[in-house]
């Protein structure tokens, strides 16, 4: 196992896939000569040249659409958004085109494209730079949404995403780019899309946590362990397809569930998964499913407010206490 930063794992994935398939290329703001706003694409320009590593203007709608068109013609674009907050400008291409073209042409074209970039908050960046969009895209048929939490997952899943024959939204986190972790050195390491991973086994409560929130859940679990509460943590890794099976299996053991996600509450991942759990495992639940997510307010700039806003281990522990009636 090599120890890599999250960004390095991503870069390896892109690099390997570019090496493997000439039709894979990268485009986005500052991805080439600047080496990436967050250095995910560092070195790729030098290695692959100006044809395959392309700096774009700040034209999210336009370059997303150019990506969609290129994908329809058989290329495999990796389109980087500097953050998914800016991808809102490209929503028409993602929601009205990439996800629908194949169906409405009766299968005559497909859109094998990866839209990737940082999702959700990254510290004190204010209301317009802090929103988690994974749940929103998961709402729309035809899109796969991936939001990994660790370098190993990131590498294996990004390689899958690039090879996937349909549109994938691949979400990262500015705050996790520097995170180090062991990454498989297996040649051509692939993690299939749609498989959750039990990252901590436990008997007392199931915690489902994605992306950055996985690390919060982990902290909470460590503290809970000291208190004699043995939490099982499931990282879905893929938001959609969502691996409900793994979650239900765990709940049949623990009978309690807390979902931690980084979206606002209304219609976020937690509500979807919570709904499905009550429907599929009603008789196994000893307590209602609880969620820990952002409050229904915009991200504030001020540090203490921001800290209050972002879910933390304390919030997770409180929710666990609630489902355990502690």
């Amino acid at each position: 196992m090599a120890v890599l930063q999250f960004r390095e794992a991503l870069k390896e994935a892109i690099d390997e896939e570019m090496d493997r398939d000439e039709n894979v290329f990268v485009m986005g703001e500052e991805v080439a000569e600047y080496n990436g706003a967050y250095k995910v694409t560092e070195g790729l320009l030098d290695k692959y040249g100006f044809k395959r590593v392309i700096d774009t203007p700040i034209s999210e709608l336009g370059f997303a659409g150019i990506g969609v068109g290129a994908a329809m013609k058989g290329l495999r674009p990796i389109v980087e958004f500097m953050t998914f907050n800016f991808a809102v400008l490209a929503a028409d291409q993602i929601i009205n085109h990439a996800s629908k073209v194949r169906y409405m042409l009766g299968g005559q074209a497909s859109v094998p494209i990866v839209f990737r970039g940082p999702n959700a908050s990254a510290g004190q960046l204010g209301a317009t730079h802090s929103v988690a969009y994974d749940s929103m895209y998961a709402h729309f048929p035809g899109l796969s949404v991936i939001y990994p939490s660790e370098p190993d997952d990131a590498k294996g899943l990004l390689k899958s995403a690039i090879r996937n024959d349909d549109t994938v939204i691949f979400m990262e986190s500015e705050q996790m780019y520097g995170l180090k972790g062991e990454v498989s050195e297996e040649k051509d390491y692939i993690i299939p899309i749609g498989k959750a991973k039990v990252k901590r086994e436990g008997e007392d409560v199931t915690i489902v946590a994605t992306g950055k929130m996985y690390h919060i859940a982990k902290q909470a679990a460590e503290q809970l362990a000291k208190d004699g509460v043995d939490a099982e943590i499931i990282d879905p890794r893929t938001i959609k397809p969502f691996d409900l099976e793994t979650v239900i299996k765990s709940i049949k053991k623990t009978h309690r569930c807390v979902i931690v996600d980084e979206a606002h509450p209304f219609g976020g991942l937690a509500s979807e998964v919570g709904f499905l759990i009550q429907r599929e495992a009603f008789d196994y639940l000893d307590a209602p499913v609880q969620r820990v997510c952002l409050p229904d307010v915009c991200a504030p700039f001020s540090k203490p407010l921001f800290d209050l806003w972002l879910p933390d281990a304390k919030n997770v522990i409180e929710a666990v206490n609630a489902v355990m009636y502690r």
Partner: protein
Amino acid sequence: MAKKKQEAVFTPIGLNKNNNGKVDKSVELPPATKKKHKELGLSDDDVIAMFDQMYLQRRFEERAMQMYQKGKFGGFLHLYIGQEAISTGTVFALNDDDDIITAYRDHGWGLVRGISAKEGMAELFGKATGCSKGKGGSMHFAKTENHFWGGYGIVGGHIPIGGGFAFANKYLGNGQISTCFFGDGAVDQGALHETLNMSQLWKLPCVYVVENNGYSMGTASNRHTVGEIHERAKGYGMKSALFNGMDALTVYENMKAIADDVRENSIPYFVEIRTYRYRGHSMSDPQKYRTKEELEQYQKTDPVERMKQYLLDEKIAKQKEIDAIQERIEEDVLEAVKFADESPFPEPDALYEDMFAGTPFIHDKK
């Protein structure tokens, strides 16, 4: 004495303004080419084929309208009637593997790029035998194996996609060019600006063509967009052209020269073709925004009639031959209606098909 404040007006006022009896025209047609088909490098057979195509598009849509009115199918039906010279002149000017993408007014484009009348009509009827398996309907005709990438329903949404085809062609170095057609209404979408800038900056071999038919739904061109549309190219230093879209030879001549330039030099082009939509925007349009006189004036320039007359005037075909063509097409279209009518609807399972090229995944299929 205080001046009486004039009430603010934002959008230019349309027909409500008093025009002193002059016919209010939404677009002015540039003159048609004076060249004969041979000078343009077209054989007699070519122009006969062009007429054939235009007549097919016309009759296909007239029948489609009838079927719609008979309740044979639902949804939107946007007719291309009046604009057939553009699809036809263009397709004859392009190579067969050049890419074409357009908006929802797409039947003409589909037919001229090889969707059979049967496949087209069946699509309108929502049948499994339709070109898009009945999944798309009127707005989403496509035949991608013939490089016709379909009709799209979000105004302006397919513009960057057309740019993407050009990107891919340049990337692949395959010598193909891309052409992207859209209405005057789409000119006001931000996507156009972003795509033009990138196309010029990146030298993408794409022809962006505005089919300016005078109206965006009920809004005359000059009420929704400022200045002359083709002049938008100026801001980007992009090559541009303006020409008559009611004459297939004019379209052919211009598109041929443009396609050559675009292919040779890997550059984009911004083109305004003036034309006119004879029918309402869709089937439920009372058309109060234009005068009968205006419509009549443009009907005098009918592209199908014009081509027919050309065949006769130039003695390329006799009336009898033309009649034969028309009859054959008439039969083909009627047969297509029959085919569509008798074709099966998609099976219920089809609801879940065609979403994915790779592993299909339907969330919570319950």
